[in-house]
């Protein structure tokens, strides 16, 4: 699945070679283009929901910016810990509640869209879903590549991949790992604009528990800023925030996470620690 590459979805020669030429690209991006051509009503509805979600995201960011600024400001206050400690916790709790509400609101809007438009009754979409299900029947492992995480997640959801991938070996990297995780968190500490507050974007497919994958984390996050790194880890705890830098591999085998080679996780105190410390069962 390379839908995150959008129009370049089919340029998968390198990936196919890495899989010994035994891969089959589901071409989810192209399939949705085909559905849109055949079903303009669904395409228009899809655009409408994107506009609604953009508006929701703007509102979320207005609130998030203020809450994050407050948290940072309170963290910087000097004084009696017994007074400030609970205030810092409350500031963090406010952000976590907002994140949770955002994910829930996105789900509500998507569910409402699915109900109102009775997606299963759209023949073009149903045909593509059936075809994908057929293709996946004899597949042993699924690979989800990176790219535009919103586009990728959108296509995975539209074609009902969550159910179809259950029980298969999954290999996911970059945005693919984010899309399969429980929560998609957008992050970049040095964007051209703004303070770079990480955003709770949407629930992922939740194909594995307990981990928040951070693709190119060492490049996108200012991990040398201990305060900032610690805030990130505390905000998204108990998920393990793992830097998925080039070459990093982590595996879930149903009991816990282990790294294949070195992998670093963000600690609540802002330090980076090897993931091996997390070889524990994740509920």
């Amino acid at each position, binding site marked *: 699945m390379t839908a995150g590459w959008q129009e*370049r979805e089919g340029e998968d020669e390198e990936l196919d070679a890495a899989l010994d030429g035994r891969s089959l690209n589901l071409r989810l991006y192209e399939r949705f283009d085909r559905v849109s051509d055949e079903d303009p009503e669904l395409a228009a509805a899809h655009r409408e929901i994107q506009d609604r979600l953009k508006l929701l995201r703007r509102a979320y960011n207005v609130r998030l910016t203020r809450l994050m600024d407050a948290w940072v400001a309170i963290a910087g206050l000097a004084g009696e810990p017994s007074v400030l400690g609970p205030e810092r916790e409350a500031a963090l709790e406010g952000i976590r509640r907002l994140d949770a509400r955002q994910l829930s609101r996105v789900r509500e809007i998507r569910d409402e869209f699915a109900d109102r438009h009775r997606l299963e009754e759209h023949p073009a979409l149903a045909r593509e879903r059936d075809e994908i299900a057929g293709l996946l029947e004899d597949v042993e492992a699924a690979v989800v590549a990176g*790219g*535009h*995480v919103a586009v990728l997640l959108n296509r995975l959801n539209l074609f009902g991949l969550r159910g179809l991938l259950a029980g298969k070996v999954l290999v996911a990297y970059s945005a693919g790992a984010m899309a399969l995780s429980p929560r998609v968190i957008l992050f970049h500490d040095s964007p*051209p604009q703004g303070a770079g507050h990480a955003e709770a974007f949407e629930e992922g497919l939740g194909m594995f528990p307990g981990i928040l994958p951070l*693709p190119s984390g060492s490049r996108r996050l200012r991990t040398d800023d201990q305060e900032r790194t610690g805030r990130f880890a505390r905000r998204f705890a108990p998920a393990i925030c793992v830097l998925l830098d080039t070459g990093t591999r982590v595996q879930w085998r149903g009991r816990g996470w282990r790294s294949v080679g070195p992998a670093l996780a963000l600690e609540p105190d802002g330090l980076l620690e090897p993931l091996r410390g997390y070889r524990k069962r994740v509920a």
Partner: protein
Amino acid sequence: MLSSPALQELERSVAAAGAHAASEAVDAFLSSHSFPLAEPPYYTLVYRGPGDEVNLRHWIYALPTSQPFRRLPGTDLWHRTVELPPGSRVEYKLEIVSRGHAEWIEDPLNGQHATDPFGANSVICAEGYEVPEWTQPDPDVRTGQLEDRVVKSDVFGGGRPLTLYRPARFRLRRRYPLMIVHDGQDYLKYAGIKTVLDNLIHRLEIPGMIVALLHAERRMSEYSADPRHARFLVEELVPELERELPLLGTPEGRCLLGASMGAVAAFHAAASYPDYFGRLLLQSGSFAFSDIGESPRGLPLEPVVELMNSYREEPRAISRQVFVSVGTYESLVYENRSLVPVLQSTGMDVRYVEARDGHNWENWRDRLREGLSWLLPGPLWMVYE
């Protein structure tokens, strides 16, 4: 007059060596230094040659526009030291006066130049200023396409030339924002806007966008709050482009960019059709106004003064996000600083940036990343390769 420590040393050695060895000492000095001689915060310009007078001519508002060089006694070496705050970028020329005749030239000892529609200037880049790397061509970046075309206009009568930019990987299925650029030819030639767009789109800092680069026929009149220009944009150009190209067609998806009088034209068009253009990028706008009496800016800007005075009397939201930039060293800093609180009072989202630079195309180029990525943020947040 300020003097560089290096020059003071040269002066001492010339004095000690005597007239016969002065020329060799100057030769040695010139070959062992690069110019402007940087001793932050002091920058020394030197000129070697005959003349009765040498002057530094620059456009830094609040400093005398002509500053005399001093001749090193016993030599034909002239010098002038200026103090510049970190991050400054200053364009200048040398004025050589000889037998009553004055000639403005680029500094022969300075390899850094900037071009504009009037020619070229030499440039002093103070410590802390660097040409942003995103303004330079990158061989790894896929480039967009330019296409010259003519748009029929009943408003102006006849055709209006423009250049259309389509981003790399342009697809009819996508919906793109539209940016209209005043003085498009100059933005292309002197601000390298095509390279900037290619690079910022490639880096995902701005979205792929379609850009209409305008070429005004009678710039000073058409950009001076001429209602025909606003009508041309809103009633002719944008509808035609939105019919033909996959554009968003919403206020958030329409942006106007302009510098100097081009910024006035953009502001006037937005004010004439409120909330039609949801994004404005106004650089060093010639926003002349008067609190009392007449504006010192003179007759050519009278329509602008009328526009701005009227807007200042009754400020109103005309767009949604407005990015205003200006050079700290240009006289228009007064007008632009004055405009910002007026814009903010209307509830529009306004961002204001000053740079230690002047009224020139490289200043406007250097501010494009900050302005564009704020007005039209790209998918950087969303893409994880």
